[in-house]
């Protein structure tokens, strides 16, 4: 029982500790994939867009975390 609780706690720690950050990262990948499929985004532009999207997710995640701790 202790072990199951520890495994659940680990999964929560990894994926849901900052649910917003997890969802933003997944959304960035999903939007890039949709953009590529609908030909809005070219295959050459996708890596740059995803890089920028992930960077934006990090910046907002840090800003939110820092505000929460003040």
């Amino acid at each position: 029982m202790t072990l199951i609780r520890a495994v659940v706690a680990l999964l929560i720690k990894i994926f849901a500790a900052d649910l917003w950050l997890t969802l933003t990262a997944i959304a960035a990948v999903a939007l890039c994939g949709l953009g590529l499929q609908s030909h809005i985004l070219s295959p050459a532009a996708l890596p740059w867009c995803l890089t920028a999207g992930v960077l934006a997710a990090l910046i907002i995640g840090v800003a939110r975390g820092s505000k929460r701790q003040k």
Partner: protein
Amino acid sequence: MTDLASFATTVGASFLASAVEVVEAFTIVLAVSVVRGPRPALLGTFAALAVLAVAVVALGPTLARTPLPALRLTIGILLLVFGLGWLRKAVLRAGGALPLHDETAAFAAETTALRQAEDLDDKAADGVAALAAFKAVLLEGAEVVFIVLAIGSRPGLLLPAAVGATAACALVLAVGAMVRKPLSTIPENSLKFMVGALLTGFGVFWCCEGLGAPWSSGDLAIPGLVALYLLAGLALAAWVRATRSTVGA
């Protein structure tokens, strides 16, 4: 050049990520060994390693059957979530918004918890201690296995990823066996900072490959991505520190 860059990045990423996890597991196993002796510590450790080995053997064929683009996209997303979480936390710790992880405190907490179980008879107390070691090695080891499989998921890169992880385990255990106390002098947050940037860089790279839009520069994009997220993290840590000192003033 590309091969060398892939090899070095894979070994480095696997080594650093594994070192962070092994240090955390070592602290708990050491606490068990100090309070109840080496027997339950070794029993718990080897039992966890056996479970991990079975999981890897069972999972391997499933991974091999998964279509490559889907596998790369899934691994990319997992690495992104994992890496961004580590990087964000390391930035907040470096900026002073979160307290640093303290191995000495973790060791003290574990030994206190284990000493409370000493009221039980010897067999039960040994069982509690072995379970603590088992849990620590299983949970931290699962993270190491995931990182090694994810970083080494490109043809020919599983071996360097495994070499990096094995080297980290050997180094941490050798240093730990020599000093016989928690490895609190290891700059864990700096390691986590670096590993967060590495995993995020790998994650973006794999997502692009999984979506069918790889970088034109191939594997050489990985060091560039890692450098970008590392620099961004350092800038953000400086910003957090500056805003906190402005608020504190």
